[in-house]
């Protein structure tokens, strides 16, 4: 029975932990402007993150090496430092967006200005990282994040015209009001929101934190292959809600409050309360993950002692880096920068930075010195290579599209 509970817990936290401010904002922006015509990108992104997280979890469990140790060992110092620079800055951008997301979600609960919530949220994140055990932190935010299932319930409560919804999803075409360039720009943004690099930094470092071994791999495979797709379905539900309620009224999502309106329409006050709890948990959990990822990337590159399983004094520089990153996040948000705008940039830059960490992980997953006989199978390699091409194309196309569309205007 305990084993079953462990499996269930793993899946639930994977679902709850999958969504963050990037998914919430990007899925609803896309739903409100493109309807269901970009849903195929979410499916693609979910498959991609399943392949990627699986590989990095297996590499971490077998070789005990987390992502950035591998990036440096495989690429050598010079290429790794460029990789570190890009990945760290983009992670910092995502971290700032996530803290902003928590503040916006708390504003929805309290009507208090988000700029006041930012320091409170950042302090709470630091406190959890400083004192709370890794697994407890993951389970609580993951389970509370499950409240976002209310988006899926809302889709049914809204009794949509299922034919047009699925029709749009299956036969995607660029809506009249949008240009091809914005369509593909938001395709990349959506792909970046599903396959965020920090999820992999966190996932593989978490495997080392929780001292995974070969026998934990089946558990992690179940978590990923069941949890992430269900998380992806929630992303689709968010897009569907926006399509059903916001698109017909010409509402283009530019703030988190608009994301909650379809849920209010579908399920009234109770549903709104639940979705707010879900949003706070999802963004808070994502802030924890991005903060830890900022510590992981720097500490693993320089070879410092790192990890939440160690007392803070045993991983001093690791914790110092995280404190500094949180302070930077607070400072950026204090300038009044709009967290939704930061989020939109962070998901696109995530798509740009993805190859930097995907390639080394793919290489090490094939390296007998690291993996022994558990190297990638032929099928995994085939799928992984297909995604390498997709990821490279998305990464190269992102910047030109950002210029043409003025970041999706």
């Amino acid at each position, binding site marked *: 029975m305990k084993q079953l509970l462990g499996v269930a817990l793993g899946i639930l936290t994977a679902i709850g932990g999958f969504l963050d401010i990037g998914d919430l904002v990007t899925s609803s922006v896309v739903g409100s402007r493109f309807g269901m015509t970009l849903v195929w990108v979410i499916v693609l992104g979910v498959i991609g993150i399943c392949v990627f997280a699986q590989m990095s979890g297996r590499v971490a469990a077998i070789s005990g090496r987390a992502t950035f140790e591998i990036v440096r060992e*495989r690429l*050598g110092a010079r290429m790794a430092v460029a990789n570190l620079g890009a990945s760290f800055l983009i992670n910092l951008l995502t971290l700032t967006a996530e803290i902003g997301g928590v503040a916006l979600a708390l504003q929805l609960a309290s009507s208090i200005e988000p700029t006041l919530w930012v320091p409170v949220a950042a302090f709470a994140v630091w406190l959890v990282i400083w004192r709370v055990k890794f697994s407890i932190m993951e389970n609580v935010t993951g389970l509370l994040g499950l409240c976002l299932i209310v988006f899926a319930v809302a889709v049914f409560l809204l009794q949509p015209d299922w034919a047009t919804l699925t029709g749009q999803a299956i036969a995607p075409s660029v809506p009249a009001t949008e240009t091809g360039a914005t369509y593909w720009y938001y395709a990349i943004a959506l792909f970046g929101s599903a396959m965020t690099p920090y999820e992999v930094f966190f996932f593989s470092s978490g495997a080392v934190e929780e001292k995974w071994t070969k026998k934990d791999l089946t558990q992690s495979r179940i978590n990923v292959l069941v949890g992430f797709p269900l998380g992806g379905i929630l992303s689709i539900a968010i897009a569907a809600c926006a399509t059903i309620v916001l698109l017909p009224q010409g509402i283009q999502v530019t703030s988190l409050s608009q994301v909650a309106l379809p849920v209010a329409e579908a399920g009234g006050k109770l549903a709104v309360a639940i979705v707010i709890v879900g949003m706070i948990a999802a963004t808070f959990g994502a802030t924890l993950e991005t903060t830890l990822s900022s510590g992981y990337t720097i500490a693993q590159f320089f070879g410092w002692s790192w990890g939440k399983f160690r007392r803070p004094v045993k991983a001093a520089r690791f914790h110092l880096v995280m404190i500094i990153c949180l302070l930077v996040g607070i400072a950026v948000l204090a300038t009044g920068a709009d967290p939704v705008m930061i989020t939109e940039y962070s998901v696109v830059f995530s798509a740009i930075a993805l190859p930097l960490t995907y390639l080394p992980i793919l290489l090490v997953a*094939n390296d007998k010195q690291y993996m022994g006989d558990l190297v990638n199978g032929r099928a995994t*390699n085939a799928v992984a*290579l297909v995604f390498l091409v997709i990821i490279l194309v998305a990464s190269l196309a992102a910047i030109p599209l950002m210029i043409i569309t003025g970041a999706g205007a």
Partner: protein
Amino acid sequence: MILSDLLNRPVLDAEGRTLGKVLDARFVIDGAPTQLLAEARLAGLIVSPHTGTTFLGYERTDENSPWLIAAFLRWRHRGSFYVRWEDVEMLTERGVVLVAAYARRSAALSTSIGI
């Protein structure tokens, strides 16, 4: 002397012709035993005619998956060879000068891949 000074330096034959660059330095732990581990002796250098930056060692192992990357990297390091330390004549500002009758050996790592 720092190893990075040696890595990536041009390799010249006795007549001064450039053969390539030092791709890597191969050490073998079979010197005089110290407290814990024997001395690591510089057995030889791996020279690549095209590029000094090694990339994941595909040129030396029978690693061939994922094939797309392995094929590309092997192409990039085609023609790389191994010279023993005994074949090194001297170190100069211009690079590593080999003896006239240096032997070009395969750079392939034997089965015990550095574990």
